[in-house]
């Protein structure tokens, strides 16, 4: 393991800053978080990703202290947090609505938490000014929240929650209220600030692109359970389930039956009159077991002529989605299966090679896809 790679989760001696131990949270009969165990390490930028109602916000609210776990324990630096009220936790939260106090100026919003600590006046002033510099808000210190733009409000909320130098910063959909362009800029700003302050960030989001961009690790959640925790490349390239494969990015899912292993390759039979798909499994599949073959559209090659690659199928172009930089072709195979193939448009549109109803070949290499059990 090279020294400069940040991966404390691989180090068995590292002490996690947050530990969820078999945490369950029920609202009535509904389990919002279901027997969940996870460790989060210092200086991590940890993303909780999932559709609304998957329990990610509940997890965050338990960390902040607004909800108490029904069962299990949450430890912060090894200490059980259950008896600690929200105002006594070294954890701060940036709210989805920003929750800026409308009756206070930007300066006083940022100073709000520091005042509660009873710090001397000049220390508070110094810290607030530092936060204003960090978030580039010096010019707006005297303004009220309604007098600044959405992006600036977002930065005030960030500055306010960072002012007390919390061990852990929780961000609830921090960029959800911004438009797409501003959101992308702000993502890099967030990463920059996280690096500068060395604070552990836990972010809740339903936007997979955002999670992939900012996070050191991503936890994909569904129905109160964590489905997979991994780094963004691992999540994308080796999802552990069809749920994750489908949730992150675009994917072709093909259902088939496992054939015999041939070295490290597995043949999957998936349709009459069609050649087997050869894949490289990471786990063992019994012969005859149902296998899902997942392949990203950009890993599927589309050609007019039969390619040299042995995994190739003939079909016809059903639909074309032109996205500017990319084009996605929907190719229908003889058994009705639709395969999405994506190509980069590095040539002008007039030279586009394929059109509707064209007979084409789709192909991929035997390591391009993943084999999943469910």
């Amino acid at each position: 393991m090279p020294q400069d790679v940040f991966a404390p989760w691989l180090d068995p001696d590292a002490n996690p800053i947050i530990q969820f131990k078999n945490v369950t949270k029920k609202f009535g009969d509904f389990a919002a978080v279901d027997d969940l165990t996870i460790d989060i390490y210092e200086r991590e930028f940890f993303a909780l990703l999932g559709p609304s109602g998957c329990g990610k916000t509940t997890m965050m609210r338990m960390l902040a202290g607004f909800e108490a776990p029904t069962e299990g324990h949450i430890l912060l630096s090894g200490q059980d947090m259950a008896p600690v009220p929200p105002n006594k936790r070294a954890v701060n939260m940036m709210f989805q609505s920003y929750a800026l106090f409308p009756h206070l100026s930007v300066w006083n919003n940022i100073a709000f938490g520091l005042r509660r600590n009873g710090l001397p006046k000049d220390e508070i002033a110094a810290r607030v000014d530092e936060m204003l510099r960090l978030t580039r808000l010096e010019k707006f210190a005297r303004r009220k929240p309604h007098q600044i733009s959405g992006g600036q409000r977002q930065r005030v909320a960030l500055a306010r929650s960072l002012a007390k130098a919390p061990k852990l910063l929780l961000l609830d959909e921090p960029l959800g209220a911004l438009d797409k362009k501003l959101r992308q800029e702000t993502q890099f700003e967030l990463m920059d600030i996280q690096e500068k302050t060395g604070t552990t960030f836990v972010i809740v989001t339903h936007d997979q692109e955002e999670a992939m961009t900012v996070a050191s690790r991503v936890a994909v959640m569904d129905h109160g359970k964590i489905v997979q925790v991994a780094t963004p490349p691992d999540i994308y390239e080796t999802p552990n389930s069809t749920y994750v494969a489908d949730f992150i990015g675009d994917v072709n899912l093909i259902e088939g039956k496992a054939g015999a292993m041939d070295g490290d390759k597995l043949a999957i039979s998936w349709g009459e009159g069609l050649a087997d798909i050869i894949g490289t499994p990471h786990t063992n599949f019994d012969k005859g077991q149902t296998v899902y073959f997942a392949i990203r559209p950009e890993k599927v090659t589309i050609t007019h002529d039969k390619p040299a690659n042995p995994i190739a199928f003939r079909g016809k172009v059903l639909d074309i989605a032109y996205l500017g930089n990319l084009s996605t072709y929907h190719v229908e195979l003889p058994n009705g299966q639709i395969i999405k193939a994506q190509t980069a448009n590095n040539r002008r549109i007039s030279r586009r090679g394929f059109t509707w109803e064209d007979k084409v070949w789709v192909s991929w290499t035997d390591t391009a896809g993943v084999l999943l059990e469910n």
Partner: protein
Amino acid sequence: MRRFSWFNATSLTLGFAFLYLPMVILIIYSFNASKLVTVWAGFSTKWYGELMQNEAFLDAAWVTIKVAVISSTIATALGTMAAIVMVRSGRFLGRTLFSGMIYAPLVMPEVITGLSLLLLFIGIGLDRGVLTIVLAHTTFSMCYVSVVVSSRLVSFDQSLEEAALDLGCSPFQAFFLVTLPIIAPAVISGWLLAFTLSLDDLVIASFTSGPSATTLPMKIWSSVRLGVSPEINALSTIMIGIVTIGVITASLVSKSTVARQQREERAAERLSAG
């Protein structure tokens, strides 16, 4: 751009004439020199002069203001507490009874509220006077305050209070530093409503006051039962004038606040776009 159609213009003109003409006539005739109120005999302010010398009216006005200030202040405190309980406290024993007791006085005929409070005060042997009127007014106006404040609390973004807790406030501090300043306009309107209700009240005050305390409406009542009087016209004019100035000022202030806020918001958006 919408304009008034002739039908709408007519119905509005007639409607507002109906609403305001009686008061306008009252005001005009308060400057009538004649003792015969319905016969115009030239302009005069003599009834205002006589009103100012009428000790009984001045005493009653003083009692009324005293009662209104004290009762509306207590009612605002109690009503705000009740509103928080209704909106925030979730379930507790007797919640239905509690909300029933908040809403019931709003629809209870004044004669019944007055009667029941009087019977209570007699039952416990409390001397009737300013204190009993204050207790009575506080009780029914706290319900109005709680309705006004709770309608504001319902739309209050709970995450503001959570943010305050998150930043180290105790729940008590969070209420006084964050919630109260934000809901202050609703609390102030609640107070004004309670104050006006107390100023206006005739029936409940008549039941609950004793010989030692007479409020202005009671005084007006005993004199108008005998017929129209020029002094009462003058007094009415003063009261209408105060209310009108108050309401118009309040609406102008809130209008300019809203306008300024909108202007600043637009400026902020331009700033970020530019």
